[in-house]
């Protein structure tokens, strides 16, 4: 009973309780503060490790096409990230940090994705072409793909025309057709100018498997000649139509045709013959236009009298194999401008995927490897657990 009323040591107990509470409160605050500090440190280290891992970009891809992508696999990226994070954790003495788990995903960042490629292309197009910086000693073995193939192409190797009639109709039905084009279409065109050859390209960009690359982008046949023939066919078709419009609007030409038609088929069939002769004349003129283009001469898109080369009499005398006839006034619109017009109204996705095809084929020749553009990645996403806390994010070029 005496012990219950004894007051000795009461103050000590009181002080222990108070000090204990203070110490507990201090430790709680220290733990919370270190938790918060750890969060920002971890994010800083993850970002740093991500940048370090992405620094291993594919050199040939960057030097030839100014594209940044890494061909490291998920496992390799995993190892790189683990290495950089652990090394950083070991070297810092402020907080104890432990890497618990790491999960890297990169599928959604494949350069085979047309949107990601377009983004990279837009970023790089404002700089001078990078292929001029490649050492002349770089090996380019075109025979390599002849022997081993170029693997699965991003466009799946589907050839064919990529401008559909609805697209053209919609395009020309707008008042300001040129303004209706998105700026990206011009960026893509500039990239094609800088990094791909075409039939009349001067000087030719070295390290290219195909010579008519821009024509490949339009038609997608794995053969230079076939793509050029398809472009010739389409050019002549378009020019025939434009030449017909010119003939119809020129009264002198219409009169000549009417006289010729009257002589050939007098009577009610005159109109039909006149139309047929006009088509023939426009076609021959278009064929002459192609020869002019191939010989580095210009062809006016909407011709006036002085831009017209073939006379009606001259058309009859001329054999198809003969050299071209020059118009009175030479035009400034050359092969490349016509090619550009076709490329500008081409289907965006087809254009991007065929550009990727060419990149894959040329890099295969440069690196003598089974290079696949789909296996190159412009970044990765991560899910990392450090000291039991999860961090999600992405790292991209």
């Amino acid at each position, binding site marked *: 009973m005496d012990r219950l009323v004894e007051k000795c040591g009461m103050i000590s107990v009181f002080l222990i309780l108070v000090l204990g509470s203070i110490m507990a409160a201090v430790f709680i605050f220290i733990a919370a*503060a*270190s938790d918060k500090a750890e969060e*920002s440190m971890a994010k*800083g280290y993850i970002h740093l490790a*991500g940048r370090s891992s992405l620094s291993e970009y594919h050199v040939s891809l960057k030097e030839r096409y100014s594209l940044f992508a890494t061909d490291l696999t998920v496992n390799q990226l995993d190892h790189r990230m683990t290495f950089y994070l652990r090394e950083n954790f070991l070297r810092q003495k402020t907080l104890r940090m432990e890497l618990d788990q790491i999960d890297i995903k990169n599928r959604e960042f494949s350069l085979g994705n047309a949107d990601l490629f377009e983004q990279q292309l837009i970023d790089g197009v404002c700089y001078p072409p990078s292929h001029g910086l490649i050492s002349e000693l770089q090996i380019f073995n075109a025979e390599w793909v002849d022997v081993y193939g170029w693997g699965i192409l991003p466009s799946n190797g589907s050839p064919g025309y990529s401008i559909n009639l609805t697209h053209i109709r919609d395009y020309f039905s707008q008042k300001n057709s040129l303004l209706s084009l998105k700026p990206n279409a011009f960026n893509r065109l500039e990239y094609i100018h800088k990094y791909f050859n075409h039939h009349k390209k001067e000087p030719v960009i070295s390290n290219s498997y195909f010579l008519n690359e821009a024509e490949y982008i339009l038609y997608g046949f794995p053969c230079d000649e076939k793509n050029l023939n398809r472009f010739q066919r389409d050019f002549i078709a378009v020019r025939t139509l434009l030449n017909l419009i010119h003939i119809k609007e020129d009264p002198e030409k219409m009169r000549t045709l009417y006289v010729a038609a009257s002589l050939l088929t007098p009577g009610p069939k005159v109109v039909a013959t006149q139309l047929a002769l006009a088509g023939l004349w426009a076609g021959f003129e278009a064929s002459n236009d192609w020869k002019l283009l191939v010989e580095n001469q210009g062809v006016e898109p909407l011709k006036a009298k002085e831009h017209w080369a073939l006379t009606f009499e001259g058309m009859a005398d001329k054999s198809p194999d003969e050299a071209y006839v020059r118009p009175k006034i030479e035009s400034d619109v050359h092969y490349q401008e016509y090619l550009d017009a076709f490329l500008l109204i081409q289907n965006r996705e087809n254009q991007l995927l065929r550009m990727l095809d060419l990149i894959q084929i040329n890099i295969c020749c440069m690196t003598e490897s089974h290079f696949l553009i789909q296996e190159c990645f412009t970044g990765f996403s991560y899910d990392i657990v450090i000291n039991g806390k999860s961090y999600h*994010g992405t790292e991209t*070029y």
Partner: protein
Amino acid sequence: MIAGNRKGTVMVEAALVMPLALLVVITLLVMCVFLYQEVHQSSNLYQNLLEESCYESQTGTTGYNISNDFIFLKKSRLRQFPQIHGETSISYDSRGWVSLHSQNKFEANRYIIKEMDYIRWIDSLKSVE
């Protein structure tokens, strides 16, 4: 008799010591809160800057939702390399018996770096040469 009487001495001592002890305890707790706020706010400032620089350079995301948290970010693009300047402060105001005012200001800078552009830029210099 009164001088010899020791009753109430504990009470008197307690009356003298307790306010002092309480003051010490409260001061310690306030200091802890203040220091915690410092760490919290500077950590938020750093995370804000990191997320914002990643966003500006389009080089990724860190999964941090940029919140105001009394953090002010200022982008300076006119410099050779664009930079983000961030600042925040924490303050403690006591308007009671003893008037106390304390404020700590934090500032930090972070460059907006897009390595890809930097490499291309160097390459374009090479091609000019």
